[in-house]
């Protein structure tokens, strides 16, 4: 839906300081109907990439192409994009409902359409009880929820979220992740940046990993897991009342299993030993 073509961004904030290359010839595309995780450590260039995608800042070189499925030009494309910035802090003196009306009106929705959308999403986001409160009285989680709600008001095809789960408590994270999964099931394209790899592993079809402004991996989660699977098997079994777990090299698996069965142990599970996405990217970062 959006193509990044050799996008580079150089910041020079001070004449006496060296240029900072935030992005180095970044190329990838956001495919339709997928949930894509945009990973990278702090300062890897994730937010800069998203700001360039949304035309808040211009690239030093390269270009961003919006597919025709989004619209013929940038403004038309933005009608079909919902964007939530990182750690938003909205107008403190407006109520949540007024804020939703503001955002809805800017996407050409009528009052009735805004109200019906707010009614649906406010319940899903569990923010309906606070819609008439001033935003200055919202907690961080509530701000994230009202921002997410406003992002979805106009039923966008592509949803871009910058660190949507950062700073939320486990329950809040779970609830927002459930909504992202629901959006994916409805056929929406969700592109979200995060440095919490376990969240991405849980809900994404594919990942793009940025390191020091460069794309170091772009592919499906399944593929990267398969490529990094270890030649080991994790065996869990009961020894009397104790549940024990052993990791055995694959070439000794059968021999070990026979021994356990012969000794009358109860096998509970047998699993290929696979690293978490976090471990894989930790190694990428180290290398």
């Amino acid at each position, binding site marked *: 839906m959006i193509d990044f073509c050799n996008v580079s961004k150089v910041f020079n904030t001070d004449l006496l300081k060296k240029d900072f290359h935030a992005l180095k010839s970044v190329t990838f595309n956001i495919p339709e109907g997928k949930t894509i995780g945009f990973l990278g450590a702090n300062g890897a260039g994730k937010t800069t990439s998203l700001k360039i995608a949304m035309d808040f*800042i211009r690239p030093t070189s390269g270009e961003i192409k919006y597919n025709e499925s989004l619209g013929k030009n940038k403004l038309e494309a*933005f009608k079909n994009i919902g*964007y939530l910035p990182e750690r*938003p802090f909205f107008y403190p*003196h*407006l109520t949540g409902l007024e804020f939703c009306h503001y955002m809805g*009106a*800017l*996407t050409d929705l009528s009052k009735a359409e805004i109200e019906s959308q707010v009614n649906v999403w406010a319940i899903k986001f569990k923010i309906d009880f606070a819609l008439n409160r001033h935003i200055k009285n919202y907690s961080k989680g509530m701000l994230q929820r009202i921002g997410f709600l406003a992002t979805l008001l106009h039923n966008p095809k592509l949803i871009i979220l910058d660190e949507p789960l950062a700073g939320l408590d486990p329950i809040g994270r779970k609830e927002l992740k459930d909504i992202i999964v629901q959006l994916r099931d409805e056929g929406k394209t969700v592109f979200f940046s995060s440095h919490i790899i376990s969240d991405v592993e849980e809900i994404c079809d594919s990942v793009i990993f940025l390191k020091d402004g460069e794309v170091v991996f772009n592919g499906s989660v399944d593929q990267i897991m398969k490529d990094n699977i270890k030649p080991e098997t994790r065996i869990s079994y009961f020894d009397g009342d104790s549940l024990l777990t052993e990791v055995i090299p694959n070439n000794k698996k059968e021999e070990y299993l026979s021994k356990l069965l012969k000794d009358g142990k109860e096998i509970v599970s047998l699993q290929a030993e696979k690293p978490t996405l976090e471990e894989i990217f930790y190694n990428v970062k180290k290398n």
Partner: protein
Amino acid sequence: MREINKILTIAKFTFKEIIKSNILVNIFFLGLGLLLVTYVAYSFTYGEPARIALDFGLGTLSLSSVGIAIFIGSGILAKEIDSRTVYMIISRPVPRYCFILGKVMGLILVLIVNVLLLSTLTLSAYFFIGGEFAPILMWSILFILFEAIIALLVVSLLSLISSQTIAVILSMIVYVLGHAIDGVKLTSMIAKNKVLESIIDVYHFFLPGYYKLNLKEHVIYKQNIELDYLVNNTFYVLFYSLFLITLCVLTFNKKNLD
């Protein structure tokens, strides 16, 4: 048509956000202070109490309007970027010029409310003390609003190209210069020095001539003023505002919002 609706929507919510902050309370207390000062001045003045009341009233009105314009206008963009609210707006199908025009329009509405409230108080006190109505009074209040609008546009433009603090300081300097420049030109030192005279001519060309909008002397001392002068200066405000708005839009279109 859609763009106009978007500008009006941004203006409406900008106005709402500012009005729902404590600004109306501040204006209310300013108004009370104004009445108190007027009463004290009236009690201690011999001969022309109405004139003194008007002098205080118009002075407060002018300073409060320009103060609101400069201090709130300087945050027009800086606060929006800091809180990332600007991203929520321009990530929607809203051209950047709509954002700037909507914000400015919302702030102008706030200035109009301020001028209406304080001028009502000022005129009430003036008439209560025995002052007489003259059309120049209305022109004077209108020109105070114009002065605040220009100050708002100046600070908005400066905040787009510098930090909020620098924008406030520069706007104040431009405000003081804009009032003093005409008097300075009449001094013998400038009249004798061609270089300084040309510098002032350049100033007149680019920077706002706030002195043109100061009718206080005419009002208080009941001096005659030509209608042509008022109409010409109204057109000056119109064209100068358009010039500043155009610069704001062009600058904002090019600006990296990081």
